């Protein structure tokens, strides 16, 4: 029976042109909307699968009031409980977030529901700090595996695999542990209607940060200058094949 804790973050769904907030401290999600990043969706999926051994997955986030949407999204796909550290995420740096998650782990343990495994995304889709999971591991004094795409638990050990520079790597280590996840190993499920309805009603543990944040050392965000498009559209669909091959001939790459 495993009771993983999985950490998610409400991020702007920045698959399109990015718009900054007026104070240039964050990304404006007005048009794009908000989401849980692909890495974290996979982490949630892995947590739900791991907890299927009779345990229960808990989802946690540090975010403003609206971040409850991301908690409910995780509840809708199978997390059993949720914890919301209500705080302005822009004011919290990676070390601050790691400290708050560690406090949640300790408090849950004290309350009789220990998490022997904490799953996170490899990096946040917005701030891209690549360090919350590792800092959390040091806060807890646990080992940490980074950037893996499959995670399974058996006999008090966690096995994780992922793609490394020299090939496909396997890690195996005793619990408790922290694991950060890259997308690709599992297909995250979408919520079902009953799941969503259950999530809507699930109670969410609300808590405040345990300390004032140190902050992210951010001066401001800027957008890279847009480059004007000079693209020449050769056509649409298969009918453009002759134009494509004309281009190949013109560039002299068709010779043989």
């Amino acid at each position: 029976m495993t009771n993983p804790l999985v950490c998610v973050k409400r991020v702007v769904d920045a698959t399109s042109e990015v718009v900054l907030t007026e104070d240039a401290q964050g990304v404006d999600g007005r048009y794009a909307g908000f989401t849980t990043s692909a890495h974290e969706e996979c982490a949630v999926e892995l947590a739900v699968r791991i907890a299927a051994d009779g345990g229960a997955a808990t989802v946690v986030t540090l975010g403003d009031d609206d971040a409850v949407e991301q908690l409910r999204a995780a509840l809708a796909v199978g997390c059993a409980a949720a914890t919301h550290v209500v705080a302005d995420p822009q004011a919290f740096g990676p070390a601050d977030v790691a400290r708050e998650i560690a406090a949640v782990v300790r408090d849950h343990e004290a309350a009789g529901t220990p998490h022997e495994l904490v799953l996170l995304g490899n990096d946040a889709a917005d701030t891209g700090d690549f360090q919350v999971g590792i800092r959390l591991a040091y806060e807890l004094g646990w080992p940490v595996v980074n950037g893996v795409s499959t995670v399974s638990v058996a006999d008090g050990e966690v096995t994780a695999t992922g793609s490394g520079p020299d090939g496909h790597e396997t890690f195996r280590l005793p619990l408790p542990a922290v694991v950060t996840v890259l997308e690709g190993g599992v297909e995250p499920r979408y919520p079902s209607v009953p799941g969503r309805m259950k999530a809507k009603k699930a109670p969410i543990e609300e808590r405040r940060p345990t300390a004032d944040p140190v902050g992210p050392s951010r001066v401001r965000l800027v957008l890279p200058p847009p480059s004007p498009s000079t693209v020449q559209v050769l056509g649409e669909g298969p009918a453009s094949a002759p134009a494509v091959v004309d281009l190949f001939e013109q560039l002299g790459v068709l010779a043989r």
Partner: protein
Amino acid sequence: MADVPTTAGVVVIGAGIVGNSLVHHLTRLGWTDVVQIDKGALPNPGGSTGHASNFIFTVDHSREITDLTLDSVAQYKEMGVFTQSGGFEIARTEERMEELRRRMSSAKAWGIESELVSPAFVKQKVPFIEEDQFIGAFWTPGVGVVDSLRAGTIMRERALATGELTVVPTVEVTGLDTEEGPHGRRRITRVRTSGGDIEAKVVVIAAGVWSPKLGDMAGISIPLTPAVHQMISVGPCPQLTETEGEISFPIVRDMDTFCYERQHGADMEVGSYAHRAILHEPEDIPSIEQAKLSPTEMPFTSDDFDPQLEQAYELMPELLGAEGAEMRYAINGLLSLTCDGNPILGESEVAGLWTASAVWIKEGPGVGRAVAEWMTDGHSEIDLHHSDIARFHEHQKRREHTRLRTTESFIKTYGIVHPGEQYESDRDQRLSPMHDSQAKLGAVFFETAGWERPFWYETNASLLEAYGDAVMPREHEWDSRWWSPIINAEHLRMREAAAVIDLSAFCIFDIEGPEALDVVQKTCVAQCDVAVGKVVYTPVLDAKGGFRSDLTVMRLGDEHYRVVTGGAHGMADRAWFSGHLPETGSTTLTDLTDDVSTIGIWGPRARDIVSSLTSDDVSDAGFGFLSCREIELAGTSVLASRISYVGELGWELYVPMEHAAGLWEALLEAGAPHGAVPAGIGVYGTTGRIEKGYRAYGAELDSERTIVEAGMQRPKVKAAHFVGKEAYLAQRETAPSTVLCTLTVDDHTSASGARRYMLGGEPILTRDGGTLTDGHGRHPYVTSAGSAPSLGKHVLLAYLPPDQAVIGNQLAVSYMEELYPVTVGSVDATPLLDPTNERIR
């Protein structure tokens, strides 16, 4: 891809369902050098068409919308992109069942096959529905889904095949240039785009939710607001995966929860109109680059949808809760809403600049055809006056008005809307000078064109006792909603003594100049070359001989006419007359609506009351019927016009706004000893009018009806030319296809024993419920219904097939799915009350 041409015969902005339909029908009708641009890419440029749920329910209470929908269905079918699925509108409550019965009336009136069915019937066709969640349903077998993107492509390709269309996608409009034309009316000259400028004298804005932004570029108001419609897709559902094609099960509209469930392949789409109105400003719609999906597919706000999810689940738990069925797609889709729910079509105040906006998939191709016809011929086959952009008054052009009204009406998308229902928001826009006095009299105000008009006065409740059952009380809540027996009491007092009626909402404009006579002769059917001081009531026709309006014209001088018309349609009338002013600019149109108030006084004692306030001669000899002149009344100079819309002796008194309140008080005070009371529009617009069989534009009269059909032809046709004359002359030579008749209800008793009163829109059938069809293929329906207290009858007006238009003919009216016997009382304009018009003398 094509470059932006430098000139065009017509530029169509937008490549959604409307723009595509327009280019097809314009080229079909012979337009050349047509240029279509869109800022998005084809075939889905990112507007509302791209995410539409694409299903079509054909029955609407509005004939105009129904006709556009039926024409659209025919076009979709011809293109092979229509899949018939059938559709249910289910009722969870008895109140909704009653609304479905009313829907049956509309279905029969518009000739659409429908029936009321049991939950078991629904279950048979939709096996995964929970029968015990609802009590009945409205079944329309002809409901279906369309591929609107494919239809758009087909229509665009047909237009391209004519060789007259150039399509330029991914080009954004940056400006619309205009120049000053005659009478200060601007005209369109140029479309500026990110790909270069196009010189064009005709431009159509068919840009959906972006239309207001484009309108602003030319300084015109296209008052629509982008609003969110939420939709989720759940699947794959095992019950659906086994079926072939896009849709095999009928669409279910769960009317009481404002939701629909529509199969889309293996998925079930659940849409909602139940959430709070989520409105956006056109400027706040993201660009194509900023948008995650498309600009009109905004991020889903799940909290708003959660209650609907539960209700949908209640209805289809096995399907929506099936193993493996997941919510894979969810959007806040943007669509266009307007303050009155109708599209925005036609030529704007900028000459040559047209719009076809706020149109849904179900009307798209029909709108494209109708607007193309309008652009080509000046009129369309389907009457579009409810959708005419010219209808908007100034206060309705404000964004705030649109926002407030659509916020209020959004929830009514699937709501039960009473025909008399009044808006609550953004009221008190136009108050007559008598408003305070009227409020003290307990006036119940209804809104017309922004004006607050007393419909009846609660202080007249004291009359109820005197008249007893003659006020024809209505016991059923629906029949008596937005109604009061006080209206009938006021009516009876008017016929007995006199009534004073506030008519400030009239739209009044003067035509002055050397060509004033030409202008009114050209626009009006009746002879307007009359002596100064004469009043003329006249139809106004379009070129094909359909009604544009009916109104009165007063000749105030050799070169000076005053036109008085109803407030609701006044802006369109003003635009019509403006459009017929000579180019020379020597003759002008001046709108006096805000400067002149109108007070009516009618009844057998009207002359006594008026003469007590004036030393002028107001005797029949001194002030004959259909004449007008300035008189001194209660110390104020007023233009008095002896005319009546209620069939009584009396006058319309045109008085400067600043003196209106004083005149109002003087008339009431002088009238009191004679028994006169203030009376509301309930009398003026319905009871007084219907007893006299007077026709109303928008009810009996519209562009699909002729003078002959309406029974309004005069013995002679004037020699002078007027718009529609040729058509009118031809109409006079042939037997009418349909005849406007007056009917009375013989027995009001329903099966439950309650007496029921029709409100309008109901189908007229044979006594035993058989369908009637006129020469246009239309089925008779009640165009106006109302009490005729002086006759003690409930009167209905309806166009009947000519062979049924026989006095004494016994027919039936279907109301809430019960038949009531009716008898034809008049087959022309002859009134049931006072047929020789003695009372008016």
